[in-house]
């Protein structure tokens, strides 16, 4: 069941990628894309899909994944304006340092997405990750305590990622 699902899922993703790259929807392109997608999926090693089994298509998870996009966009824009203000001041206003942050997420993919999200929002940059501890370079250090820093930096993303990746 799990392997059948991951086969179908990966084939669908590859086929969609082919259609976007080909840029047309006529029958020949779609047929060629389907054949190539199935062939490539057969050629890969038959481990489980990286994201997990059929439970990733649970409606609640999909809803949170869709809600995550505007939340992320808002975070990126707000922090960009913040950093732009810092740059444009005559004397660059920064108070940098590397702080420790603990994450609640268990799954490796969830941790990777959390680290990438933290890196994408300016003002915070994931420097190193070991286990559930992340070391984050922060332009404006507001608290030296790991607990408070986690709440400030990671909690907003974690609320969504906990549901999406389980």
């Amino acid at each position, binding site marked *: 069941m799990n392997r059948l699902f991951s086969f179908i899922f990966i084939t669908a993703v590859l086929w969609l990628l082919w259609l976007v790259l080909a840029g047309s929807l006529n029958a020949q392109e779609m047929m060629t894309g389907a054949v190539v997608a199935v062939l490539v999926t057969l050629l890969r090693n038959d481990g489980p899909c990286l994201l997990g089994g059929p439970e990733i298509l649970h409606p609640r998870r999909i809803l949170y994944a869709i809600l995550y996009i505007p939340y992320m966009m808002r975070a990126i824009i707000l922090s960009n304006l913040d950093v732009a203000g810092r740059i444009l001041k005559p004397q660059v206003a920064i108070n940098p340092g590397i702080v420790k942050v603990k994450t609640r997420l268990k799954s490796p993919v969830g941790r990777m997405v959390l680290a*990438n999200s933290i890196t994408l929002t300016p*003002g915070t940059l994931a420097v190193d990750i070991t286990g559930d501890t992340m070391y984050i370079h922060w332009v404006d250090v507001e608290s030296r305590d790991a607990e408070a820093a986690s709440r400030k930096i990671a909690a907003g993303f974690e609320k969504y990622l906990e549901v999406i990746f389980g």
Partner: protein
Amino acid sequence: MTMPDTPLNLIGAVLTLFGSMFLFLGALGIIRMPDLYNKMQAGTKATTLGNILTLMGLGLLMPGWLPKIVLIILFVLITNPISSHALARAAHKAGLPLAKGSVLDQLREDEDAIAAFEAETQASSGKGVDG
């Protein structure tokens, strides 16, 4: 190529203008910030937002191209944090110092603590073999 002044085209052009302003701010950031980590914060992240806005604006000028442009944005969003994280990690491991005004460096503290602990256990185990 001259574009007609339809509302959609105007929105796209304004988005492109805002995006290129962020690209410029990113380039200004890497000049003004004092050390590598802050440069990366201002430089490569502000340019990511600039990239998204510019590409979306240009996509609105050519609505038929949007799927491919969204694919480009997706690739940028995936690859950009990886490259800046890799560079920051390597620079910290190579011992590139933080800027003078930095308040704390808990990663360096923890690394030093681990190194001290390992040296201590090695010394004590060496003593044990001797004894």
